[in-house]
């Protein structure tokens, strides 16, 4: 079953005619994902062609969803227009919106967050995230559902869930699992911005309820309290082993480390404090980013 998306999920891409959106639309099609529609205002009626597939482009998400049955969207729209694109997906009652865009103003996301709170149809992943992959059963996990920018080929169909705030660090964890012969049910990057859609806790809850997920790698970083909140939830409710890594043990306080949300604000959001809190919740914590998979495999024994 995996979580949120399956190989059958029908995907539309907002910003498919742009350079960035187009490149990753092609990569998703190559991976075997059902990319069924594109949305670019003003370009309705055109087609996005790749490898013999003609993907229709629509002016609005509502139209695209109605005409193609798409239920999930990837947002590759520039930062100034991204909040509008996310809200359009919510208004069209999509099940899932995955916002890849980096650099959306905080005030825009604050309004988006309030709209999300007032409904229960659409879930948001991101923004500023690598997206979501549910691996397929083909060679190099071909045939899966890839929404976003993650490299599909490093995945492998399996039973471990991965959730993270970062992109390449997620790939690192996935690769460690795959190269040790352990596949993944679904891998999700929730994004590096201070205001985002799904939280670590939301994703742990989904993995916990998923009969095809046996164990979870949770990757976090300095700043905020999302990882610790998730750890506390897991202590009470999660029946599956979890291994965690928190990046930023060497980060100086008060400096923004690349991600807008990665900044130490007080004593509670340092890497050391988060690791200690997670350990107190019974979660296996890796001190080295090289040991994420090994730590989980040891916890599963």
């Amino acid at each position: 079953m995996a979580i949120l998306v399956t190989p059958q999920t029908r995907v539309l891409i907002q910003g498919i005619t742009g350079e960035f959106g187009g490149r990753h639309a092609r990569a998703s099609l190559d991976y075997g994902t059902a990319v069924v529609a594109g949305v670019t205002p003003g370009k309705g009626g055109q087609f996005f062609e790749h490898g013999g597939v003609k993907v229709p482009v629509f002016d609005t998400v509502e139209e695209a969803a109605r005409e193609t049955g798409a239920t999930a969207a990837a947002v590759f729209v520039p930062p100034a227009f991204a909040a509008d694109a996310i809200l359009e997906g919510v208004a069209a009652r999509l099940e899932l919106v995955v916002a890849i865009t980096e650099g959306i103003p905080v005030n825009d996301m604050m309004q988006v967050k309030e709209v999300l709170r007032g409904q229960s149809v659409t879930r948001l992943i991101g923004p500023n995230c690598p997206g979501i992959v549910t691996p397929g059963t083909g060679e190099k996990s071909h045939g899966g559902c890839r929404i976003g920018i993650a490299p599909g080929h490093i995945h492998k169909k399996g039973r471990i869930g991965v959730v993270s705030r970062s992109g390449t660090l997620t790939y690192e964890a996935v690769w460690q699992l795959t190269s040790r012969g352990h596949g993944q049910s679904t891998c999700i990057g929730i994004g590096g911005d201070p205001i985002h859609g799904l939280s670590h806790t939301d994703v742990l809850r989904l993995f916990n309820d998923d009969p095809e997920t046996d164990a979870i790698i949770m990757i976090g970083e300095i700043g905020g309290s999302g990882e610790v909140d998730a750890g506390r939830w897991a202590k009470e409710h999660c029946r599956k082993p979890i291994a965690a890594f928190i990046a930023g043990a060497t980060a100086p306080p008060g400096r923004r480390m690349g991600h807008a949300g990665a900044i130490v604000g007080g004593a509670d959001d340092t890497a050391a404090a988060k690791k200690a809190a997670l350990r107190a919740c019974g979660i296996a914590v890796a001190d080295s980013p090289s040991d994420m998979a090994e730590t989980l495999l040891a916890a599963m024994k």
Partner: protein
Amino acid sequence: MNIHEYQAKQLFEKFKVPTPRGLPAATAEEAAAAAGELGGAGLVVKAQIHAGGRGKGTFKNGFKGGVHLVQSAAEAGEVAGKMLGQTLVTKQTGEAGKLVSKVLVAESVDIKHEYYLAILLDRGSSRPVVVASREGGMDIEEVAERSPEKIIRETVHPLLGLQAYQSRVIGKRIGLPSSQLNAFHKLLSALYALYLKCDCSMVEINPLVETPDGRILALDAKFGFDDNALYRQKDIAAMRDLAEEDPRDVEASKYGLNYIGLDGSIACLVNGAGLAMATMDIIKLHGGEPANFLDVGGGASKEQVVAAFKLILSDPKVKAILVNIFGGIMDCNVIAEGIVAAAREVGLSLPLVVRLQGNNFEAGQRTLAASGLRIESADDLTVAAKAVVAAAA
């Protein structure tokens, strides 16, 4: 991004947040003229730098104090003359100090009580939160540690905005007299409008003062702005003072690099912020000290790697370099060719350890090996970290 105190005062005036009158000056003559315009007596001259502790600071020319009370226009000019063009050292500037190119001449006000007032993002609720305290004029972190019950927090619904009752509740809880609650609501509403319209990440008034003649004024302020929103805040972006920023940070931002200098000897160059932090962590874990945080973004073009190497080499403490690239979509061989070309272009002589993983990494490693450069190549992060720590020892 930070701004100067005189710029903060301009924003307060624009949004009608009550604040003592003040004018910036870049020369002694301008300072004297500004003082004349403000009435001549009962004024304060303040050196404008992006660092705290100015009052207790010392100029490199021996002049003591970056904040002085003056009683005449002539005295204002004289004091400004001793500050302008000089370097002020405070506990926050480090030994190098900061060059003072502007002073603020402002009304000095009598103080009955000092409060604290700020608006910032509450990450837990994803809403703005007003933070206020009866204990102003000192470090708010100290207050939080000593008497957390004296810090009031009130979140604001982003779609409704600040409500009048919230101002009254906050005002009462910090002990403002009933007669001041209306004035406080006006001030807080104006501050909230400024926070939203200017895309602030934080605005902090410390102290907010009550004067003996019954006024409430913002005396000193600190602003933070959302970098993501600067594209639509042209006036704010124009307030950026590059002279106040680390020149390496300025250079990095030109090439889309995210660079933060640190104190260690092992430089790192990584794609992705999370992996960049993790790379610093693994260097430390194996006994080394990272010299920097450097994220080159999702790709890693040759131009970016050249710029990154130049930045790294501008730090004399660096003894070895670790490049850690997870080639997801990008071909590792293309990245390897970029690294070799960049190393040649900058004439790199320091030990270089390159860890490539992901798409086509075997070909990338062959390219590095065939380059004839002193490059140690690894596909495992632990192996790479140990190698670079050994090379820097």
